[in-house]
């Protein structure tokens, strides 16, 4: 059996949804029409004060740049690993150094850490490559006859 009170609350809640959407849409329209980098021709103090939304966007940009730098450092580190597998330890170290330079350019701690890891990996792999290789004994030359145990003395 339906509860008339509960049904009334449900209708009221449903009417609030388009209202919230309308408010949100209006906010978006305002943000789209507002140029955060535009300076006020009047030079009013209100233009000097930080815009909260601009600050939030800038924070997002900074965060994205940090992530990009971190990803770039990781890419450079993997490139260094690949170089160390085909080149000598010296070239591998150079690749690691290159990775480290890229990370520095990105100016992020994550990049430096990734480069360090890449260098360590490159050195480790270079060590494996430099390990002694077991050389197989040469095969006997082709023979034309064989001296062997006889069937009968």
């Amino acid at each position, binding site marked *: 059996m339906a509860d008339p009170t509960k049904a009334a609350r449900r209708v009221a809640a449903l009417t609030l949804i388009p209202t919230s959407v309308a408010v949100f849409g209006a906010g978006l329209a305002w943000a789209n029409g507002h140029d955060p980098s535009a300076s006020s021709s009047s030079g009013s103090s209100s233009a000097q004060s930080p815009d909260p939304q601009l600050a939030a966007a800038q924070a997002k940009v900074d965060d994205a740049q940090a992530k990009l730098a971190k990803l770039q450092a990781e890419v450079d580190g993997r490139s260094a690993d690949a170089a160390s597998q085909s080149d000598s330890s010296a070239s591998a170290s150079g690749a690691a150094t290159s990775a480290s330079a890229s990370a520095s350019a990105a100016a992020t701690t994550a990049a430096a850490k990734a480069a360090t890891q890449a260098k360590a990996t490159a050195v480790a792999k270079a060590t494996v490559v430099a390990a002694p290789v077991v050389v197989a*004994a*040469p095969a*006997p*030359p*082709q*023979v*034309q*006859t*064989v*001296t*062997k*145990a*006889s*069937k*009968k*003395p």
Partner: protein
Amino acid sequence: MTVSTDLAVTFTSMASDIEIRVVDPAPGAQEALDRAVAEIDAIATHLTRFDPESALSRANRAPGAWHEVPPVLADAISAAHAAHRVTQGLFDPRVGGTLAAWGYDKTFDRIQAESKGSTSWDIEIHRTRRGAPAPRATWEPTVTGTVVHLGGIPIDLGGIGKGLAVRHAAAALADAGRSVLVDAGGDEWLAGPGPDGGGWKVGVEDPLGRDEYVLVLAVTDLGVATSSIARQRWTVRGVPVHHLVDPRTHTPGGAGLAAVTVLHPDPAWAEVWSKTLYLTGAAEIAASAASLDLAAAWVTVDGEVGTSAAIRPFVLWQVTR
């Protein structure tokens, strides 16, 4: 018998696969090859102790009597006597009696067939030696032309027979071509630079079967012989024996050795020395080979490969273990 167009012949004799090959044959090479085959057949016919009607078997039945024998047998007895003297008795054709007592009085193929093809087997002992072996006097046969006296004891020329066969065949083929190979189942004569120059490339079989070869030699104008217990081993009432009998003890000789290979200008002496060095055993073979200045290589029962200084210039390759 099969004959190929490149003047080579293969056949079976002395219970071995025989191969004769002439590289760049000269005029008359075919006749020389035929003579070589006849020489080998003569040795096989007259020197075998497994055919009761052979010249050797007839002489052995009355070793204290005089016998008129074919020249090839008289020559073989003289050669065996020389080997006996030079090796100070270590080469002794009289060990055939010990082998017979161990059941080796028929061809080895027959022994294997009767033992159902196994590589180690028990045999029926027809005669069993009892007690300690009596000291033996030096073997003193007498050979006057083709009349011989064995010295009172039956003999076995198996220790030199194939070497003599190769020696006679090599003599028949002296001018047959640029290079000549005579292979009598491991006892060989290798003349000339070989098919490719630089000497015949000779693989020395691994007696333990772990590798195909233990050595590869480059040989020119030399005989090669190998004495090995790789195949001719059996047991007598549970006691392992082999065909290389030490005449000093009448027991299987060559303690610690599996095989010995010797290079020598005479194929018969290559065979004599390979057997004699084998009997010295693993502990003494290096010193013996050095003192005799023999070109020798050996393999111990543990698989170690040894070489004398005289053979090293011939070694092209040696197995790594």
